[in-house]
């Protein structure tokens, strides 16, 4: 099932994400997803996230699909050129994976194989364009595909709380132009900024899912503030996390904060995307508290 069908029906679409293991056993990932994420619409499977080598996204997607979940295949342009990416997309379609998220990807220097060759033959925009091309029955070089053309729900990301909203909107417009069907955002901790962004992003008429991270600790938030693009946890939230150490450690404070953000932003978006970062077990409580 393509998640675009749900957006079209006006449904509020909830997704989460998991990372494949650095190894050959996916049981743990599948079990966790089955226990905590089976109530939600679809699950993103990351593609060697942060440039750290892991099992590929596609085989892990298949494992989730076999367990009854709907996976979203994340594809980055860091490790494969246009030939390999198109070939992967055809394979994914053959295996029944029809939801994808197109990303440029982190630089190889950010990960655990810093000496690897960064590819970036395509980028998020030209990858979306490539997918659209395949959907029309020809490859990027214009050669016809044999038989039925693939069809995907094509997603991409935006960063609504970044320093320069105008630059983000310009990039978003390029992605829409290239064929993007829906967006997931970088984690939002400043609802006012998100709402303002959405006022401007409305013009594109594409569904946007609010990105949510459950804040685990003050340390984690400070790390994000210093290192993660487009993420800023404001001081009053840091105070809230500092106030009751036990409550924060148990995840209660984080869930409260995340639920509040969702409630505040819900009228302005078409879904949420939860990046649990190991706290998958907290997702059901979060959704309940947020009233979803």
């Amino acid at each position, binding site marked *: 099932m393509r998640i675009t069908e749900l957006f079209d029906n006006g449904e509020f679409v909830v997704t989460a994400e998991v990372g494949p293991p650095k190894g050959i056993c996916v049981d743990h990932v599948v079990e966790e997803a089955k226990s905590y994420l089976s109530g939600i619409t679809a699950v993103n499977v990351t593609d060697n996230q942060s440039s750290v080598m892991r099992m590929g996204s596609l085989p892990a997607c298949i494992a989730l699909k076999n367990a009854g979940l709907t996976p979203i295949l994340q594809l980055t342009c860091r490790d494969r050129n246009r030939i390999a990416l198109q070939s992967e997309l055809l394979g994914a379609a053959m295996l029944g994976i029809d939801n994808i998220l197109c*990303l440029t990807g*982190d630089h190889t220097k950010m990960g655990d194989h810093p000496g690897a060759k960064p590819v970036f033959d395509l980028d998020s925009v*030209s990858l979306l364009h490539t997918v659209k091309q395949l959907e029309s029955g020809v490859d*990027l070089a214009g050669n016809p595909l044999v038989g039925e053309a693939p069809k995907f729900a094509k997603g991409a990301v935006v960063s609504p709380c970044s320093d320069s909203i105008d630059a983000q909107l310009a990039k978003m417009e390029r992605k829409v132009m290239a064929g993007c069907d829906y967006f997931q955002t970088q984690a939002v901790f400043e609802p006012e900024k998100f709402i303002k962004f959405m006022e401007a992003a409305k013009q594109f008429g594409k569904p946007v899912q609010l990105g949510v991270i459950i804040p685990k600790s003050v340390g984690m938030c400070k790390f994000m503030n210093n290192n993660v693009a487009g993420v800023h946890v404001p001081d009053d939230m840091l105070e809230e996390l500092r106030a009751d150490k036990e409550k924060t450690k148990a995840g209660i404070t984080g869930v409260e904060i995340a639920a509040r953000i969702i409630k505040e932003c819900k009228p302005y978006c078409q879904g949420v995307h939860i990046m649990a970062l190991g706290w998958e077990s907290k997702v059901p409580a979060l959704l309940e508290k947020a009233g979803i």
Partner: protein
Amino acid sequence: MLITEMKVGETLRSLIQGKVFTIICHGCREVRFPEQEVNAFVRELAAEGIVTGTITTDYICNPDFLQMRLKGRMAEIEDADTILVFSCGVGVQTVSSYLEDKRVIAGCDTYALPGYQGVTPLEHDCDQCGQCYLNLTGGICPLTACSKSLINGQCGGAKNGKCEVDSNMDCGWERIYRRLEKIGRLDVLKCPVQLRNYATDDEVSR
């Protein structure tokens, strides 16, 4: 060696707005320059009465030298709406960063040939990609100013205007966006999706 080839005249005409000041750089010994073609094109423009002035020079990639050469010509430059530069990628970038508020257009594509690449100052760099993108990026080379050599816009990694790979390096696409904003050319971000062509060497030999 480098080869610069003039972009198609029609492409250049579509980029020219109002009056033009042209800068023709015959470059260093390592550059093969399309002298006759460029001169003919500039003569065509001049016959239409839209050229405020032309200088033919060399080594415009050297900022001090460039400044000296342009000094006596600033009135003509001020009078022009478009500065059309025929040089390698480094030359165009040097001009566009010196004439920061002007619409600077690259007239050539720069290709690499085997052999010595010549000496250029370090401020700007050109990878001789053969598909010069400077007209889409406000005269800042996206291949050398961006760690991922992206040509369709910024990645999601820039933090406080710095590149995700190196916090001491300004994000090239942040610079491009600000420059386009400054020269009123944000409309170029609506251009069609760009794809690199890694087979440009075939085109040169064609």
